[in-house]
């Protein structure tokens, strides 16, 4: 059983909703990443999504774009990200880590080399934003190495494709709650609930819902019907401007604590 499977199985038996925070690796600063990851766990994170900065984040809104730019300005590359995961693993061998990013950095690293190094570092899953199921043949070396390929589904996903996504899902299926970019603020909970229920009934993996989750109230609303809630832009926004690694970890705790409490109060 993989770390991701173990984590979701534990959540299920405890009747809890998973909390999946996203941070951009290298923002607010490279030295803050590992303490921040531990801070997220302390605040109740069940899975950590670590964003790999990319120069052309086509599917991201301004908050994550700017976080990426700040990280890139500090020279952050895929090699650094893997090193941070390895450092995190020295004291936490339980919390699953998913790298989220775009294909070109992995392409230049080399798929086979990346698969080997990512597993070695302790990465559990990879979500490539610009790699839909139809192109996922390129990620075969990653799957063969035991990494989960986290797939996305969205409100615009047509029925036929949705069935294929549910079938191919591994780790968890990430449901994008609306058709837009990360960090936007539109959410019609009723529609999402109905859609997610349908997907959960069929998907071969748990369903995490993200995009537009900003605070305890929206997280709780989503948590009513999802296996896990992903929270990204609002957290990244809160971390921007942190003055030290401690400050960043503190901000993460302060931000996530009420969300964790709201999810557990269900």
């Amino acid at each position: 059983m993989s770390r991701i499977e173990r984590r979701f199985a534990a959540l299920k038996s405890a009747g809890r909703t998973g909390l999946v925070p996203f941070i951009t690796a290298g923002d607010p600063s490279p030295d803050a990443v590992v303490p921040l990851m531990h801070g997220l766990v302390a605040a109740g994170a069940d899975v950590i999504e670590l964003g790999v900065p990319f120069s052309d984040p086509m599917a991201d809104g301004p908050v994550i774009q700017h976080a990426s730019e700040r990280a890139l300005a500090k020279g952050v590359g895929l090699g650094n990200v893997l090193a941070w995961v390895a450092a995190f693993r020295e004291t936490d061998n339980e919390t699953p880590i998913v790298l989220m990013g775009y294909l070109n950095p992995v392409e230049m690293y080399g798929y086979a080399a990346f698969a080997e190094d990512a597993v070695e570092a302790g990465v559990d899953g990879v979500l490539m934003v610009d790699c839909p199921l139809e192109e996922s043949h390129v990620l075969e070396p990653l799957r063969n190495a035991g990494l989960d390929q986290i797939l996305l589904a969205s409100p615009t996903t047509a029925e036929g494709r949705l069935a294929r996504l549910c079938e191919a899902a591994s780790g968890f299926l990430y449901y994008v709650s609306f058709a837009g970019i990360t960090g936007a603020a539109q959410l019609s909970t009723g529609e999402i609930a109905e859609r997610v229920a349908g997907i959960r009934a069929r998907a071969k993996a748990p369903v995490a819902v993200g995009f537009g989750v900003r605070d305890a109230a929206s997280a709780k609303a989503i948590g009513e019907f999802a296996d896990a809630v992903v929270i990204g832009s609002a957290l990244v926004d809160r971390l921007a401007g942190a003055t030290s690694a401690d400050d960043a970890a503190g901000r993460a705790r302060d931000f996530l604590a009420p969300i964790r409490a709201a999810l557990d109060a269900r």
Partner: protein
Amino acid sequence: MTDIADFHAYPDAHGRFGEFGGIYVAETLMEPLAELTAAYEKLRKDPAFIAELDRDLKYYVGRPSPVYHAERLSKHVGGARIVLKREDLNHTGAHKINNTVGQALVARHMGKTRIIAETGAGQHGVASATVAARMGLKCVVYMGAVDIERQKINVYRMRLLGAEVVPVTSGSKTLKDALNEAMRDWVTNVADTFYIIGTVAGPHPYPQMVRDFNAIVGREAREQTLEQFGRLPDVITACVGGGSNAIGLFHAFLNDRQVRIVGAEAAGEGIETGRHAASLAAGKPGVLHGNRTYVLSDANGQIIETHSVSAGLDYPGVGPEHAFLKDAGRAEYVGVTDDEALEAFHLLARTEGILAALESSHAIAQAIKLARELPKDGLVLANLSGRGDKDVHTIAAREGIEL
């Protein structure tokens, strides 16, 4: 060379040109792209649509554009005959209008009321604003803040045509970032919005659709060359940024194996300096803007900033069909420097009375090199893809002249 039986058989149903192309986009865009593909597949075989497009190309764009024998230029060079496909004579002054007229018709057939576009130098933005005005569609053009600063006249031109020009301040604040921003708009507003991509890049069906709308350039040129010279050219050439004018010229000739095909990329200050935009000559296969193609990126896979005197060639990727043609050995891609392009610009101006766009001046420079390698009865066809009026200020500034 890979053995390809029919170059006109590409892309496949999934938008792949061999290993290049495809649909590398976020999940939210998969359905909108599928809808666009379905609409376009239906329209491109629909005689009524084809007739509509032909009418627009004839009466609005001013097609066919002539193939012109540049006799004084050829004589000056002292090699083969150089002939020019005069896309600079189209309405709005470049080949870009062939594509925007076509996509605007697709947009109307799909019931979309809002057009968005990205632009670098502003030529595609102007061509999009033009067709949107003509069809009474709302138009929003995304343009890098850096480009807005250096292309003020085109920004004003778009505004005169009723378009809203939105400055893009993310990333390098240039064309690639404008494309990212337009994609973000599209994914958010897809219900009423049609995204007119300006080059043969992006996810399927864009590389195919933009090529199809520009392929009239090569179809005309092929017929015109046969009619005027009784033969096909020995070699054809065009400048390659994203590659829409080039694929437009090349496509009709792809199965004429005796015709050599050469694309001229922007070598900027020289490929060895690193300040260039020669994705095919100096890049590696990667993934950018929705397709697999040759890209210019650093060791970490980050897309790098490119340089060319011509804003229209300043792009770190290239259309996937060009990547395919390069690897199949059917076309060659070479670099032309800023200085070589400017020299060709001046030579064409003085020998033929034509101010070429700086982009097209790269093709002229390459045509001159190719003509020198051939005997006097040889025939070199170059795509004069746009006129240079927009570049007069850039050229003056570069040469230290105050206007």
